[in-house]
């Protein structure tokens, strides 16, 4: 049951005076399924069944149908999702203005690869979009073998650099104004960011203390809470939380993947410290090689943060992605200092939560220093006792957070689920996306739990087989044994499972950082994002061009595109295909693409010339019809996915080409069997189970 604050915003109820009406026993919030009795003087809780007295200010007469006469005027009585403005007892401390600390790597590697310059430009661009009005605070720090904070005391003063060189015991200097009001200090901040690359251009320090820098930034934000944007361009080598390069040992099926575990226990305790102080860490990796995302990502996954990776970073091709990610990160719908709880009606119980969050031991609440519209929390619910068929079960998720306007709000989602004793009905109501999402998270947590690759793969297949076996056994037992019977709602389950097996999380020969990144992504993706990640969308650009017609540069609406089957059979001879999975896009050019199209899209005259371009070919916007159509198409897809998705051009022999083919999951490849073969295997396993 994933929950996320999605637009359009739920209707807001102002409860800042008396607070929302809640059940006296189980504290469930008022919802449309609470039953008013006694002429409206009492109401019965649909979660625990307690009869509560209606507060005087909330009293309303009941209509002839037994409903309150004001039911349609009060959102909480007629809608599943509402948002309350919280009253005082929900405010632990005055809501703090959003604070962002940007940590920029200025070690020699970062300077040389252009990462520093890109970052400074990107941060300057993001400053424009920071939410929270004039109160929003921004801090800027750089690091090499020491952490450097920048303090601007007044809008007219020059910045001062404070160097924290004791990286074994870092702290944020209390002297100096390290967090500046973004609006008031914008011009100086931008000026500072512009001067940073030149200031550090001659830096010869090739060590970095990213771990220490993050700790210092967390220390800085402790009194306020907020977000740390840590940009790491190489493996942290000095100071506290420094990491050692480690071999990706244990690539075999039966080996434990030790490299997926954090090598530094103090990072985890730092992460919990950060979470305790409501500080969220976003990790952006711009390295050229191994940066130990596995160790560093703990910081993000515990604190409600995001892990971005641009490895290997190329300032020409990846800058757009970086700047868009950063802008989206600060401008998207988000909340800070959040606490969440899921309540269920009797007979149900929340077994566990999963997502980028923090749970203190022995508390039922989930803490999220930051929550945004791209993340989902998953709560697993157990049925603990027999439920009466024909009645309804209720689940209510309540999220208390500070919105970007500095208000404490409570978002309450209430779900009523019909209870049936007919298993076919259950299968009819199955949600494939949710199931795959749940399965993906189970895989990622068992990978982190030191399970072997083989065991994790077994877990996927076993889950698919168990579901399909149950359907076969209880709903379709009459059909022929040689037939593979799939429930309508879950007919794509084996395909997604196969994609899961062939994804970066479970296939062989994946770089440790890529696998860790996959785990981090899978750990927070909402249902809608899991599908595209596992089974990317393949669009035949050549055909779209033809359909749009010569000169028509407007692509059809991005939502309406149906992707093709992910198989090399879908690739047309001489065609150009576009593949996207919500994180990146690849433009595949076959060997036989017409030269005219090549010229229009890439400015080269032949495929041979394309192969001769030394660097990665850049896809600049060009003033011709196919190029404009492509960019229009891309824009629409990007909007749909809320993700920039840098576009790589796959030519023969390119890493992008192998990445492209690796995503064609229905083909047989080194990563595993083809879809048909997999279906046969699943069928065989079900038959074995039946037999």
């Amino acid at each position, binding site marked *: 049951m994933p929950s996320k604050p999605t637009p359009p915003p739920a209707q807001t109820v102002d409860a800042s005076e008396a607070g929302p009406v809640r059940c006296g026993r189980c504290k469930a919030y008022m919802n449309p399924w609470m039953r008013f009795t006694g002429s409206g003087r009492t109401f019965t809780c649909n979660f625990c069944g307690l009869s509560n007295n209606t507060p005087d200010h909330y009293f309303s007469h009941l209509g002839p149908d037994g409903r309150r006469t004001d039911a349609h005027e009060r959102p909480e009585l007629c809608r599943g999702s509402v948002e309350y403005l919280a009253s005082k007892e929900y405010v632990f401390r005055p809501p703090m203005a959003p604070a962002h600390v940007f940590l920029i790597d200025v070690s020699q590697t970062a300077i040389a690869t252009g990462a520093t310059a890109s970052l400074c430009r990107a941060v300057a661009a993001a400053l424009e979009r920071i939410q929270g009005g004039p109160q929003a605070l921004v801090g800027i720090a750089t690091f090499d073998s*020491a952490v450097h904070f920048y303090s601007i005391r007044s809008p007219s003063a020059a*910045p*001062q*650099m404070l*160097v*924290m060189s*004791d990286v074994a015991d870092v702290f944020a*200097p*209390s002297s100096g104004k390290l967090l500046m009001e973004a609006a008031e200090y914008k011009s100086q901040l931008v000026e500072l960011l512009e001067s940073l690359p030149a200031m550090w251009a001659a830096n010869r320090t090739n060590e970095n203390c990213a771990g220490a820098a993050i700790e210092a930034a967390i220390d800085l934000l402790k009194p306020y809470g907020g977000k740390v944007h840590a940009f790491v361009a190489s493996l942290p080598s000095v100071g506290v939380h420094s990491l050692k390069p480690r071999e990706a040992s244990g690539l075999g099926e039966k080996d434990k993947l030790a490299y997926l575990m954090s090598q530094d226990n103090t990072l985890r305790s730092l992460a919990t410290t950060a979470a305790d102080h409501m500080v969220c860490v976003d990790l952006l990796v711009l390295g050229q090689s191994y940066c130990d995302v596995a160790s560093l990502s703990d910081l993000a996954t515990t604190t409600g943060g995001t892990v971005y990776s641009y490895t290997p970073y190329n300032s020409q091709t990846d800058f757009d992605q970086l700047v868009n990610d950063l802008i989206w990160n600060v401008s998207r719908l988000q909340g800070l200092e959040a606490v969440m709880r899921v309540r269920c009606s009797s007979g149900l119980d929340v077994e566990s939560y999963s997502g980028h969050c923090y749970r203190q031991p022995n508390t039922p609440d989930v803490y999220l220093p930051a929550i945004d519209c791209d993340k989902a929390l998953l709560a697993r619910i157990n049925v603990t006792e027999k439920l009466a068929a024909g009645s309804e079960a209720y689940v209510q998720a309540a999220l208390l957070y500070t919105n970007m306007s500095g208000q404490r709000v409570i978002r309450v989602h209430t779900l009523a689920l019909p209870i049936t004793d007919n298993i076919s009905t259950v299968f009819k109501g199955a949600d494939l996306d949710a199931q795959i999402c749940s399965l993906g998270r189970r895989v990622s947590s068992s990978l982190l739990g030191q399970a072997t690759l083989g065991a994790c793969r077994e877990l996927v297949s076993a889950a698919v087989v168990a579901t399909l076996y149950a359907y076969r056994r209880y709903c379709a037992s009459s059909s022929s044994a040689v037939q593979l019977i799939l429930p309508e709602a879950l007919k794509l389950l084996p395909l997604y499972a196969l994609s899961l097996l062939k994804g970066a999380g479970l296939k062989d020969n994946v770089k440790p950082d890529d696998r860790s990144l996959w785990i981090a992504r899978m750990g927070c993706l909402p249902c809608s994002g899991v599908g595209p990640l596992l089974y990317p969308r393949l669009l035949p650009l050549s055909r779209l061009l033809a359909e749009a017609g010569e000169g028509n540069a407007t692509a059809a609406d991005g939502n309406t595109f149906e992707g093709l089957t992910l198989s090399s059979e879908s690739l047309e001879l001489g065609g150009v295909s576009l593949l996207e999975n919500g994180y990146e896009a690849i433009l595949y050019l076959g060997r036989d693409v017409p030269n005219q199209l090549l010229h229009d899209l890439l400015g080269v005259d032949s495929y041979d010339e394309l192969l001769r371009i030394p660097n990665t070919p850049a896809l600049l916007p060009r003033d011709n019809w196919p190029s404009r159509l492509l960019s229009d198409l891309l824009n629409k897809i990007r909007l749909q996915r809320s993700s920039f998705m840098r576009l790589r051009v796959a030519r023969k022999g390119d890493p992008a080409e192998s990445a492209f083919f690796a995503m064609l999951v229905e083909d047989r490849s080194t990563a595993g069997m083809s879809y048909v073969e997999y279906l046969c295997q699943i069928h065989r396993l079900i038959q074995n189970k039946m037999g």
Partner: protein
Amino acid sequence: MDFAALEDIDGVRLTWNIWPNSKLEATKCVIPFASVYTPNKRLPTMPVLPYEPIPCKQCTAVLNPYARVDFYSKVWICPFCHSRNHFPAHYQGISDTNMPAELYPNYCTIEYTLPKTVAPHPPAYVFLIDTCVSEDELGACKTAIMQAIQTLPEYAYVGLVTFGTHVHVYELGFTECSKCFVFRGSKEYTSQQIVEQLGMRGGASARPGGPGQAGPAGPQPGAPQRRFLMPLGECEFTLTTALEELQKDSYPVIATHRPARCTGTAMQVAAALMGASVPIGSCAARILLFVGGPCTEGQGKVVSRELTEEIRSHKDLAKDGAPHYRKAKKFYDGLAAELVAHGHALDVFACALDQVGVAEMKDVVMTTGGLTVQTDTYHNVVFRDSLKRLFARDGEEGFLGLSSNATFEVIPSRDIKVAGLLGPAARVDKKSPHVADVEVGLGGTTTWKLCSLDSETSLALLYEITATANRDAGDAQANAQFFLQFITRYLHWTGELRCRVTTVTRRWIDGSQIGEIISGFDQEAAAVLMGRLATHKMETEEDFDATRWLDRALIRLAQRFGDYRKDDPQSFNLRPELSFYPQFMFHLRRSPFVQVFGNSPDETAYYRMALFRVSVPDAMVMIQPQLTAYHFNGPPEPVLLDVSSILPERVLLLDAYFYVVVFHGTTIAQWRKAEYHLQPEHVAFAQVLAAPQAEGKEIVRRRFPVPKIVDCDHNGSQARFLLVKLNPSSTYTSATPMSAEVINTDDVSLATFTEHLKRLAVQS
């Protein structure tokens, strides 16, 4: 003997100028045998020789006018060890008509220029500024420092370190923006850690192949060296900008707390920074600490942050009730050792109403030869002018003659051993046959190090006479005289490496000849030495009763050298050589050096540091202030430091060293109020008013720290500064007031004191 005239020649004062030739007789003299030597005293007639001194091959004493020279065989005999030394080859041309300067009888103090062993480095200053003070105070401090910087030469190296909760070290060589390194005030750092964290390893002080080279950290080769200390000419803009932008420590202070101030850690950081930036012994290097409150954080903590805890008083120290004192003292002593090793001096400008912990830091300042200025606020002219004088250059008004990196060595004649040194110096571990068994002050050696010395710095040396009685010597001449040679090798303020050699000789005499011995008694030198010794004992000996000790010494001295019939107080008569000594002791007993009541430990430490630094005449002013009367009946005259000196028609000028009081008698004050001095017919009155003011300014001009001037009238509140110093010959208990003023005190007067002395001295 005119001891002051002798002092002007050599800068040496001896408590006794004729010494008994036996240990037994020496102990009967009560006052220790000691010298007070001013090694950097400005001697206008002293020659500076452009060559190196010639040492005795046996005892290393330098060739001097008292050596017996055989010009024929080119041999000289060392007066200290009597060994024969050949002159070096380039002295072949000497004869009794062609003598080198060091043999001229009147050149018993002489300076040599030594070849440099270390490449010279311009003087270096690190400004260490406390930011836990009010904006107003900080502003005054900044202004004074910026004015002082204006007077520095462009080649002087400067560095900036500020502190509050944290320590900030400014990288002045970084021009893109103001850049400083931050150290946690509450953390204990070693100097090595500090240097590493500043990225300075492999800097100026590193020796190739040294142990420090082994570590992996440090700047990459080819990286530009970080520059914290830079020539002023290159960093003036960065430095002044940093100073201008310097703000009060922003760490929030709770109302019930003191600000978090990490003075100790900051000093450690500054010491490490200076140590890594300047090669040892290459220049005058000073750390100037500007502090406006007690250290409450980290090492060297003097008091806790909670205001409920009061800062330690003398009472607490006496009963060991100061919780941080010992720990802080230990830390500062360690810091002192480090500074001394590098030859760097620490100056303290303590500007606060409350104590700042000078008592704990005292030894850092003392052992490095630093200067201390203590006032109530940075706005005080005492602070501003003293700071200015610290940077005055040769030829400018107020030049202090600051030299540095001195090694001071004393070579005595046979039968004389060196017991120790009392003064602003640090012990150097060097074996010597002249070390006495009993150690006093900085003993156990005959060599000391002075990181910094000005033209006033005076060292008191205590000797032990080890000769056995009535020694029958073969060489009568050698036995009749004894010699003391002071060798000071130092970096002169001009940047030259100099060696000053002072050789003094005095007479041995049979100890039973009391009359002869007392004729060589220097009362002033004795009083100053007893002052230094008494305060030293107060600080080092448990339950030491200084007043009693001084009294007993005085009584025993009077017993031995007075003329009297036993048990007849009326017959008691002091010899003229001894006549002022009881009076000096009377005032010393009342002085803040001995009396701690009413003073804070910081004030006491401050006074004592000054007493340990200055020469005999200046110390005498501290012990017994000078009182001068200005009136209509003639030129100004010195008058008794007595309440009876207060007359209605007199202006009194009191020079109490730390302050100068201009006191107007009742009538004068009334006239002045009526502005008679502005009327042309009362020119004489105007002159009487102006003369003491001019003299007061003159005193201010030549003294460091600059004294405070108190201008007051009879019965004014400020008059207490005068009254406290006067002999209370007329108190509220006196039957008939003898003077215009009475002092409300129960203290005994000088007359009573002398009566008691007489009575006790004649007791059998």
